[in-house]
Each structure stands twice: as C-alpha cells, then as structure tokens.
C-alpha cells in the first residue's frame, strides 16, 4: 500500500518518536533560559511532523493512483517493465564491505584490503580470461601497496594494524 517514500516516512516517524522519548531524561535548564532538551525536542518534533506528512501524502497519492488505475485499466495498454535493479549485487557489495570493516582490526590494513579489493572485483565482474585474472590480482595488490606507501611512508598516517596478524 505504501510506496518507498511512505515507508521512509514511517521509519523516520518511528525513530523521531523514539528519540523524543529519550529526551525525557535530560536535565532542566540551569544557566540559560533553554536547557539541553529544548533544541532536540524542537528538531525531533519537526522531523516527526515532516515524516507524518510524508506518510499521509503517500496514502492520499495511493488512493488517487488506485482510482485512476481502476478507471483507465481497460483503456491503457500495459507499459513494458523497466529493467529490475540488480539488488543481489548491491547486497553482496554491502556484505563484503561490512566484513572488510569487521576484519580490518583483526587482519590489519594490508591483508584485509588486498582480500577485499580482490573479492569485490570478482563479485562485480567475473574475470573471463587469465589476463583479466592477472589484472584483478595486480589491482588488489597495487591498491594496497600504493595506499600503504602513500599514507604510512609519505603522509605519516598510520593505517590499522592487525591484532591477529601483527601486520
């Protein structure tokens, strides 16, 4: 029934109400006329109002769409379906990125980054020739080496060390 906008509004409404509930425990004003709870309550109330408005507008739009669809159902031909987004690839990218971040403190930057860059390249485009496999490996190692040298040696920025590997 609700479109993506409506669902987003509903989620935002729930979050704003929950956060408004959390502001109950904040202390009253002491040195200035408005205390630490005043501003958060104002912005959270505004967020809740906008979210609720979004949900209502989405419901109204849904009714209108349904009414239009029922009257025009027979008259209009079905439009060809647009290409579906490749959500499995999006989820795979999210999961690999999440695992990379989780393993970074354990494996250290050098190992974790090489594995991550290699794995994500394969996920996004499967190499079909040995040349492409070689390129995939070289990009994974090259990215890690260039980042390591640029940041640790020249810019003196320490990258994560691995608790398990010591690297």
């Amino acid at each position: 029934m609700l479109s993506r906008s409506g669902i987003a509004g509903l989620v935002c409404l729930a979050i704003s109400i929950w956060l408004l509930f959390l502001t109950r425990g904040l202390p009253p004003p002491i040195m200035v006329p408005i205390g630490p709870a005043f501003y958060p309550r104002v912005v959270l109330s505004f967020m809740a109002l906008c979210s609720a408005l979004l949900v209502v507008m989405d419901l109204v739009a849904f009714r209108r769409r349904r009414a239009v669809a029922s009257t025009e159902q027979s008259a209009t031909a079905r439009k060809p379906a647009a290409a579906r987004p490749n959500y499995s690839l999006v989820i795979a990218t999210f999961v690999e990125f999440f695992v990379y971040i989780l393993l970074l403190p354990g494996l250290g930057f050098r190992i974790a980054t090489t594995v991550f860059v290699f794995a994500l390249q394969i996920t996004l485009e499967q190499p079909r020739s040995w040349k492409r496999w070689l390129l995939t490996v070289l990009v994974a190692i090259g990215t890690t080496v260039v980042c390591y040298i640029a940041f640790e040696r020249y810019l003196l920025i320490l990258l994560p060390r691995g608790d398990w590997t010591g690297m």
Partner: protein
Amino acid sequence: MSHYDLLITHIGTVLHHQYLLPLIFGTIAGVVGGALPGVTITMTVIMVLPFTFGLDPLQGLAAMIGVYVGGSAGGSITASLIGIPGTPSAIATTFDGYPMTRKGEPGRAVWVGVFSAFLGGTIGGWFLIELTGPLASLALKFGPWEFFSLYVFALSMVAGLVGKSVTRGLLSGAIGLVITVVGPDPIMGTQRLTMGLHFLEGGFPFLPVLIGLFAFAQLMPDIEKVRRGEADSVRAPVKMILKISKLAVLWEILSRPVLLIWSTLVGLLIGVLPAIGGSAANIMAYDQAKKFSRRPEKFGTGIPEGIIASESSNNANVAGSLIMIMAFGIPGDAVTAVMLGALTIHGIQPGPLFISQHPKIAYGIFASYLIALPLMVAVIWLGGRAWMRVITMPKSILVPIVLVLCVIGAYALGNTMNDVYVLFLFCVIGYAMVKGRIPLAPLILGVVLGDQIEANLIRAVSNNPDPWLFITRPISGGLIAASVLSIILALWQHRREAKRLAGTEDEEEDTDF
C-alpha cells in the same frame, strides 16, 4: 599591504612547489574524476581528502580546489565526446557538445567547453576576490538572531529547491539537524541521545558522516545497473582527432561576450545559493542562453553557444560556492562542505572572521583558484589522450578503490575504528535515503549548520529571552520572511510541476548532488 598586493604575494606563495604540487595533483585528479561517468566531483574530493590529512591546511585546500576546478571542466570532456556527462554539472554540455562531435568536430566541442570553463572561472574569480571581503564585513554586523535566521533561510531554501518534494526536502534537513544533536550539548556538555554508546559521546564526526552518505549513495545506483556478464558500456573514442586551432576557439567564445558574462553571472548566483550546485547552474544558463538567443531553434544541434553557456556557468559556480563558505561559513555545495570539514580538522572555522583571522589561507584560496584555471587547461591539453583511456576504467576496479579510500579517510581522522563504523552506518542511511527518494543535500546542510543553529539560538535567548526579536530585528525578520516565502514558492512550483506531469510514471531516485 593592499588587497591586490596580498593577492600577488600569495600567488607567489602558491607557485612554490610546496603548494603547486598538491594543486597539480588535485587538478589532474579532478579532470580524471570529472571525466569518469558515474564519479562526481564530490566523490573525487572525498577520495583526495585522506591524502590531505598529512598536509598543512593550505596545501590540502590547494589540492581540493584543484579537484573542484579540474572536475568542473573534466565533466565536459565525456559530455562532448561520448554524450555521457562525467558529472551532473556537465549535463547541458551534452546538448550541443555531443551533436558537434557527431558532426565531425570533436576537438572544437572539447576546446569550446574547456576555454569557456576557463573564461567563466576567471570572471567568477574576479567576483570571488572582490565580493568575499565586503560580504564578510556585512556578516560581521550580524548578531546571533541574524545568524540563526540566515542558517534557517539557507536550510529552507535548499529543502525547497532540491529534489521533487518539499516535504522530503524538509524531512532530510530535519534528519541532518537531529544528527548534530547526538552527543554533548553546547552549554553544559550534557550527553544527549547517545543511548549509552561511548563512541557517540563526542557526537557524530562530520567527515565520516559525509563520506558515508555520499559513498554508497553515489556508487550503488551504478552497481544496481550492472548486469552479470556485461562489460562497462563506456568506450574511449580513441580514434577521434582533437587537434584544432586554440586561438580560433578562443575567438569564437570571446566574440560572444554578452553570452559569456551572462552565463557566468547565472553560475555565480547559483553557486552563492546554498547547496544547489553546478547541476542546476549549467541547465539554467543553457535555458537562459536559448531564451535570449536570436536562433533558439539551433540549440541542441551542435552550436557553440550551448557549450559556452553551460561550461562558463559551471566553473563560475565554483567561485560562487567559495564566496559563500568564506564569507558566511555556509557551503555552496557538497564539495565545499567537504572543504569545510577539512578546515575544521585543522581548527579553522570559515565565516565572517575567516579572512581577517586567517589571511594566509584566505588569500591562498584565491590564489589557488586563479592558478588552478590555467593548470586545468594545461592538464587537459597535455594529457587529453591519456585521460580518454583512463575513463574506460571498469566499475569493478573503480568501486573497491573508492571504498578503500573512504575507509582510510574516515580512519585517519582520529586513528580509530569508531569513525569507520560511523562511516558504514551512514553508508546504509545514505543508500536508504536514495531508495526512499529523500534528497541528500538538505541533510548535508543540516549536519553542517546544526551546531551553529543551536549555538546562535542559545546565544540569542541568553542575551535577551524575547523570542519576538527573531522577527522584529529587520535583517533577522527579513530572513525569516524569506524562508517562509521560499517554502511557499517551492510548494507552488512543485504543485505546478506535479499537475504538468500528472499521469506520468513513477519519479526517479534523487542521486544528484
């Protein structure tokens, strides 16, 4: 020392290799990033950001200004040669640039764009140098009431103008404000909304939030389109001949001075408006050029006027954004928001006192901007063929590298994994917002201005608890009235647009930054 003496001194400073190298590196990165379809200037500046942490503030800013100027022109290369705009700010360039290429004049299409960007940027640079100081002096007269109202006005305008729904824009701005509320309050340091999590006790760090929001929000819509077994569709037009008389092209642009100056002014004005950005500037300038032209029917067929309007406004937009951040501390777009974050890492707060407190950096920004323009022309001139090969880099290689640089950018801020976890959290939020069709620009501005809005609100009511002062003080009242008007105007425009599009298919996601 006079204004121009200071400028010339700082041009000399920036020409020193210590600053010139980061500027050259940034310009090259900008041209390549701008030319790569799917990689915006914001994404490029985020990739360059971690490299600037180890540098002094002006070196880092020089690199970012190089990216900004190079990226604005780089987008026109692919727009003209393959009909795909490298960045949203080069969309209008495709309208005439690509037809000109198809007519067998790729060199003319590219160089009309590059020189228009150079000339538009130079005129914009003059405004940047002349207007920033007076506007900062004006801002110095502001009290907390006026600053509060100015920030509310900026936020309301962005919420109204960006995206396709005012409600979603306002909701996005509100989410940005809520993000800044987490952590200690500005007076007593009382912890707010931290939910007992220790890593939130300092609040959400600005740059990991920004990087996270943009990283997945910009990359994922491209990944969604990838089909298994399909190679990237972008192929470099390696056999195109880009050789052309540069003087003839320059004359072609300079013989249309009214068009050049008018488009530059449009770009400058759009740049001054908070968070609107070059994507709107080039379309508006193109539209204006077409309306005022004696031969509007020729637009879209490959005439130079279309490219001049789009590209000159595009680079003048950069100058407008820089004016706004230096005079008021309000970012003109996402790139200047990243620059603001980079400055705050070094303890520098852009705003009305910026020029007087940090003249070396302020004049260094002017100088870097002016030097970046000829550098951009040189980089495109010398490396044209090489950049065309770089833009064929497949997404499967580009995406992992971008994500690794995002992680380094977040981690290097405080050498802590907490910032990387924040980055991931906002990657998810950014992508969810794109899918929920909620625009990101108001959220970014909310995050940038949230603390300032609260601080000025507290300062105002501490000085005088009368809330009517926000309306009865003339400038503050005027700005509040302008905020209300901008929302009403946006509602009217959206309503008119909705009526026009009634019955058409579902709207697209808002991934334009």
